[in-house]
């Protein structure tokens, strides 16, 4: 245990106390001419302070945030707060559902200058195109695959390793029905968005019981668990794996197995009830700007940008860039929209599997 006390430490302590002491005082907030509200996960790119300052400086538009912690919650907030949001970060798998409820407005991508650089596989993805109109601007993408402790574990080439008795009690799975079903589907060579044989999926997942140590649901939990050596093998998000390796120096490897990674991409959508569409589009444009992206990716750590030209601005050996190799697009399936019945079937399957794990 090393204890180093410097003047900086003391100053930090003092300033924090002072700040807390002043809690009674109202904090001044500078209001710009126009303020837009963004609905997003917390700490997910759009709320980087330095970026917002730059954006406000450039456009005169101020940005405030509201957060969600699950996709249904995002949908609920959009429904129950018409007019409150101007930009929403929407998983492309949800776009059709939102469009069906008239919660999103179609975007004219030609009015977003930076959209020209977007990777076509994402920009024109059927997830976000309905009747020839784009209901969102592809923003970032990533994939879920296998993270493993290094050194010690050879680069796994298959999800089968999750069932390998050598890793008893060393596995962490993502507590998410769609992702888990996808793994089961990929293991049984099925379409991960529409597996016909759910029994086989369930069997594959249940075979991981002996290895399973915990179900994680947040990056924080993952990092702290990995740091504490609670598990050695896990499903993980590609972007988070970059942060874990780069920011927290966690000794992990990350690989897409031969069955394929589970791809996803998030879009920036404009709620149909927004009255500040112009400002919203300006913000969307800024969010896919290569300059912003490079700073976000290198300073903070980000998922891969949907803007291919932004990715190319990263150094060739950049961890984020190597992790999000465009070659993956060839083999990777993206999570697609799910009809309610199928979503429920997935949820039931996962719930039953979890109950099996708990027994």
């Amino acid at each position: 245990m090393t204890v180093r006390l410097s003047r900086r430490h003391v100053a930090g302590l003092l300033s924090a106390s002072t700040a807390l002491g002043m809690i009674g005082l109202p904090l001044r907030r500078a209001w710009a001419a126009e303020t837009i509200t963004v609905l997003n996960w917390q700490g997910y790119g759009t709320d980087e302070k330095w970026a917002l300052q730059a954006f406000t400086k450039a456009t005169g538009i101020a940005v405030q945030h509201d957060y969600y912690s699950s996709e249904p919650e995002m949908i609920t907030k959009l429904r129950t707060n018409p007019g409150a949001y101007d930009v929403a970060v929407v998983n492309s798998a949800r776009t059709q559902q939102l469009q069906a409820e008239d919660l999103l407005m179609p975007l004219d991508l030609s009015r977003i200058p930076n959209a020209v650089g977007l990777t076509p596989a994402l920009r024109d993805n059927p997830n976000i195109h309905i009747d020839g109109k784009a209901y969102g601007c592809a923003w970032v993408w990533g994939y879920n695959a296998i993270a493993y402790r290094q050194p010690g574990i050879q680069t796994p080439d298959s999800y089968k390793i999750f069932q390998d008795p050598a890793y008893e009690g060393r596995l962490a799975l993502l507590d998410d029905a769609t992702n888990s079903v996808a793994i089961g589907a990929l293991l049984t060579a099925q379409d991960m968005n529409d597996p016909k044989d759910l029994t086989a999926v369930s069997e594959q997942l249940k075979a991981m019981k002996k290895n399973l140590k915990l179900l994680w649901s947040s990056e924080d939990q993952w990092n702290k668990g990995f740091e504490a050596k609670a598990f050695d093998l896990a499903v993980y998000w590609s972007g988070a794996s970059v942060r874990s390796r780069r920011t927290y120096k966690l000794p992990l490897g990350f690989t897409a197995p031969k069955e394929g990674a589970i791809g996803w991409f998030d879009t920036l959508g404009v709620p149909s009830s927004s009255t500040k569409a112009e400002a919203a589009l300006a913000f969307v444009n800024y969010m896919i700007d290569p300059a912003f992206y490079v700073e976000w990716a290198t300073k903070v750590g980000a998922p891969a940008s949907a803007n291919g030209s932004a990715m190319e601005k990263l150094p060739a050996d950049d961890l984020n860039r190597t992790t999000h190799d465009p070659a993956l697009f060839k083999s990777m399936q993206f999570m697609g929209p799910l009809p309610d019945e199928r979503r429920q079937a997935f949820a039931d399957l996962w719930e039953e599997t979890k109950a099996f794990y708990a027994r």
Partner: protein
Amino acid sequence: MTHVARAFLLGVLLFLYAPIIVMVAMAFNASPLYAMPFEFSTRWFGALAGDAVLIDSTRNSLVIAVLTAVIATILGTAASLALERKRFMGRAILRILLLPPIAIPWIISGTAMLLFFFWTGIGRGFHAMLIGHVALAIPYVVLVVGTGLKNVRVDLEEAAQSLGSTPLHAFFAVTLPLLAPSIAAAALFAFAVSLDQFVISYFLATPGYSTLPVQIYTAIRKGFTPEINAISALLLGFSMLAILAFVCLSKAGGTLERR
């Protein structure tokens, strides 16, 4: 016997404070992932000083918690008086009706409130959170004050009335002083319930207005830095100082004795 009692009490306090000690220790640990070995650092306090959102939301939490404690304690004490002291039809049902606020998982109540407040135009924000928090705290107050009321004999109030007190005066002159420890405990509970509440607050928070637990809850996704430990440790420290000051300066030392 007293030695055994003291030792046991010490054990209970150790149990209650084990995670608190860890929490405070991690506020001073350099690692953002609570990593060992421990490396002393005040960086999180420094980071906290520059985090207006976190400080702002902490202030909001305290304001809501104090208001919740005051309102819930007044309402709950009144209801508890009626439920304990009056006989009327449907009393058992009214008691049972106190259970849903604590029995229904927060996520359901939160969603339900969000929808209902949306439909009725109550909306979200400070006032909506306050409505929600008070409702959740009321059952705690009613139960705790009710427990205390069982120890304050009815005939004391009757005696006061027979001596010329109106029911209100009898309450303030006799029942209230005897009930003070229970009411204080109930207020502390209500305060804690509000300070702990993240799900409902989360649903009812507006873009510009959130509370500390909401910040923590949303931060969990990405990774909550020990800044949160730092502010919690500071709050804890201030509470301890406040309590010490309160106990030393006031005659409150006697309140738990009077009976």
